[in-house]
């Protein structure tokens, strides 16, 4: 290969608090090539990217840029070295114009430097022209569509003389036509010798655009090969080909009546449409799908955060309207959000007050809170769920992530819900706490509680669920029974079979 090697990573390892994110990964990028990076959610792609962009330091391994070893990489260093990343959600300043956005980071950062508006505009126009984008430089970025914003970002990174461009799921919310435009720009950039790392869950795109492909799995390198050598089936096998590593304490529970049923549910605002599914007493229904497939959005509809504008929700056969979280709680729908650290618990409040927040009525006498009962209830949950806390009066903000999660769970269990929706219940908690949360889920299902579990971790989905609803493009792509569910089957559905449907942006 004559092309110059722009980027060379060798034996990169990275550990976060005992969790191994990357182990001994090597990766290289040549001038003028598109190198696809694939892997499941959590395979280590983001960590690898963050090491390249300088957001993280590797624990082991070396990074070379154009043959030069780089020690102590950081974001501004990486920027100076010509490394730029473009994420799914454009990171532009919405209130500034296109020209200003492109100028930021390119002009010398001297506060008293006079702004040469003409120069800014001309440069922005030239850069946009180079990628063939017809965007007025005086437009405020908030008025641009998502693909236009991406192009502005690409133009900006070109202005910074980026030689290495990282594209993280750039097509996730683009229409077919927009994808074509983006590919045209990418080919243009290849001509100019820019090397691109291309991350996408849309495997069908890769043969069109990628020269080589590298698959990561559980933080380790699976294989790097030429795109022309592998089929789509090979790619899927590279991504998932492993046995279930964890043991899931799945208890067989006789399934009862349907508790929650939705039919043709949709919400235009969140892009969810025509969702039909049900959950029975004692059943754990897994919601699988890629990031952006509509899993969390569906949960938010069921909890009244973004009320449905189509279809119906039935709870124990009764038609209900869920137009606010307060209503959902009244109906007995409990939702443990994904972003637990921000909104799952109230960090300032003690464990006891967090636990009883949803059931203050039941611990009150004639409307007066009984602190004894509150204490007893909280203490009971602390011991039942194994919450590690100095006392029930400790503010939840002082506990570890896994224990915060258990407090959030305790609050909902105290409310004795009709159905429990868990959004990534074990994300970011340590292995021990994870096993315990799984054990609890099994117990709760055993007591007849229907559970809807959203998870990006395929082993968790396969290990814990009685049935798996796989979402793609905002709707149910298929529902698999436990017996029929394999990693390949789930991933096939999640990837949307071939061209698949696309969410309008």
């Amino acid at each position: 290969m004559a092309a110059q090697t722009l980027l060379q990573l060798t034996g990169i390892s990275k550990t976060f608090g005992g969790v191994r994110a990357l182990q001994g990964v090597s990766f290289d990028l040549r001038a003028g090539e598109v190198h696809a990076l694939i892997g499941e959610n959590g395979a280590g792609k983001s960590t690898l990217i963050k090491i390249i962009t300088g957001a993280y330091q590797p624990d082991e391994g070396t990074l070379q840029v154009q043959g030069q070893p780089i020690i102590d990489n950081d974001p501004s260093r990486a920027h100076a070295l010509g490394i730029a990343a473009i994420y799914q959600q454009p990171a532009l300043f919405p209130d500034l114009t296109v020209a200003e956005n492109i100028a930021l980071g390119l002009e010398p950062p001297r506060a008293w430097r006079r702004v040469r508006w003409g120069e800014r505009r001309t440069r922005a126009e030239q850069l946009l022209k180079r990628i063939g984008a017809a965007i007025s430089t005086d437009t405020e970025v908030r008025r641009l569509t998502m693909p236009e914003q991406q192009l502005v970002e690409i133009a900006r990174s070109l202005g910074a003389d980026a030689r290495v461009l990282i594209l993280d799921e750039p097509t996730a919310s683009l229409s077919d036509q927009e994808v074509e435009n983006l590919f045209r720009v990418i080919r243009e950039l290849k001509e100019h010798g820019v090397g691109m790392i291309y991350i996408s869950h849309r495997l069908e795109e890769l043969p069109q655009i990628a020269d080589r492909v590298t698959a990561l799995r559980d933080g380790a390198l699976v294989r790097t090969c030429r795109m022309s050598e592998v089929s789509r089936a090979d790619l899927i096998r590279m991504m998932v080909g492993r046995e279930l590593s964890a043991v899931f304490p799945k208890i067989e529970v006789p399934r009862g009546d349907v508790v929650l049923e939705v039919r043709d549910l949709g919400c235009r605002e969140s892009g969810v449409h025509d969702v039909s599914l049900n959950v029975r007493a004692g059943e754990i229904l897994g919601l699988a799908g890629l990031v952006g497939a509509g899993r969390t959005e569906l949960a938010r509809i069921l909890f009244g955060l973004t009320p449905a504008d189509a279809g119906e929700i039935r709870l124990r056969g009764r038609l209900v309207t869920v137009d606010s979280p307060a209503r959902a709680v009244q109906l007995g729908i409990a939702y443990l959000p994904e972003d637990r650290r921000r909104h799952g618990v109230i960090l300032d409040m003690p464990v006891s007050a967090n636990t009883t927040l949803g059931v203050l009525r039941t611990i009150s006498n004639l409307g007066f809170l009984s602190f004894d009962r509150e204490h007893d209830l909280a203490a009971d949950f602390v011991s039942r769920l194994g919450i590690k806390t100095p006392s029930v009066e400790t503010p939840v903000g002082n506990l570890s992530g896994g224990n915060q999660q258990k407090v959030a769970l305790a609050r909902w269990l105290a409310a004795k819900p009709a159905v429990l929706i868990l959004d990534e219940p074990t994300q970011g908690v340590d292995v021990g706490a994870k096993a315990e949360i799984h054990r609890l889920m099994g117990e709760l299902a055993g007591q007849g509680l229907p559970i809807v579990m959203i998870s990006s971790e395929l082993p968790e989905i396969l290990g814990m669920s009685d049935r798996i609803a796989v979402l793609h493009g905002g709707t149910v792509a298929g529902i698999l029974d436990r017996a029929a569910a394999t990693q390949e089957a789930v991933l096939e559905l999640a990837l949307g079979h071939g061209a698949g449907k696309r969410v309008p942006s």
Partner: protein
Amino acid sequence: MMGRYRRELSVLAAYLVLLLILAVRDFLAVLRGGHLGFYDLGHLRALIVSNAPLLVAAVGMTLVILARQIDISIGSQFCICGVVAGLLSKAGLPMPLVALASVLTGAGMGAANGALVAGLGLPSIVVTLATYAMFRESLRWAREGEFVHDLPAGFQWFGTGQQAGQWLVVGIALVVFLAFAWGLRHLRIGRDVYATGSDAEAARLAGLRPRRVVFGVFVVMGALVGLAALLNAVRFPDVDPNAGTGKELQAIAAVVVGGVAISGGRGTLAGSLVGVALLGTIGPALSFLHTQPQWEKAIQGVIILAAVATDALHYRPSRARSAAE
């Protein structure tokens, strides 16, 4: 228990030190054959009576700040409610109805603030800055700065005479304080206020209705301002249309000094009580200690800064930790 009230106790300690200094001063004065100054019963009583309306307003402000909001329109509300009370009394309404009308007038203005903040989602500092000016200017337009004179005999001191009237004013303020202090801790709605102020989104996800809580605290704030204005007005023979000027800053200062976090969710009414007492004592203390009275505002400012700074220093480490996790 001690840990939970650490902030309140440290303010209380500062207050006790001030009282001690004043006690030494009075002791020395008596030794030299002079009179009691600060601890003269008549002076103490006058001081407590004059701060009773502020305590009532500070109770409302505590709720507002706990819910992570602010209300700077209460000075103007205070002026309007006082004038309304005076005019209605002059028109022959019996005192209980005058009191009710004053409270309802305040609640109405509070509801306007609450609707704009909770209903439209506007920031409370902007909303209440606007209503501060609107309320004040409409009173000026309607009354042209005129005092309400010739009040009926039943108005001043509720017609009970100064001695009993003073007890009544202080008694009402204390009952309001105790009722809210108890309710904030023992009622569900009190818990809702703390939860809303700590993290409104988390409260919403827990099935609470934070917008209703925010609306509610503004209405209660207004109602308490109406009561405070009445308790203030009955102390004088005429109603001053500018009686409320600056009350918003006094109330906010007392609450903040009392340890209620301006970022919401943390603090108690006990703290606000100590805050009112501490700030109210500074002025008299300066005059008894023969310091120039101009220093009063400056010293109050230093105390407010010290209170906010200790709050920031005390909470920064744990905040940073939970954010980094």
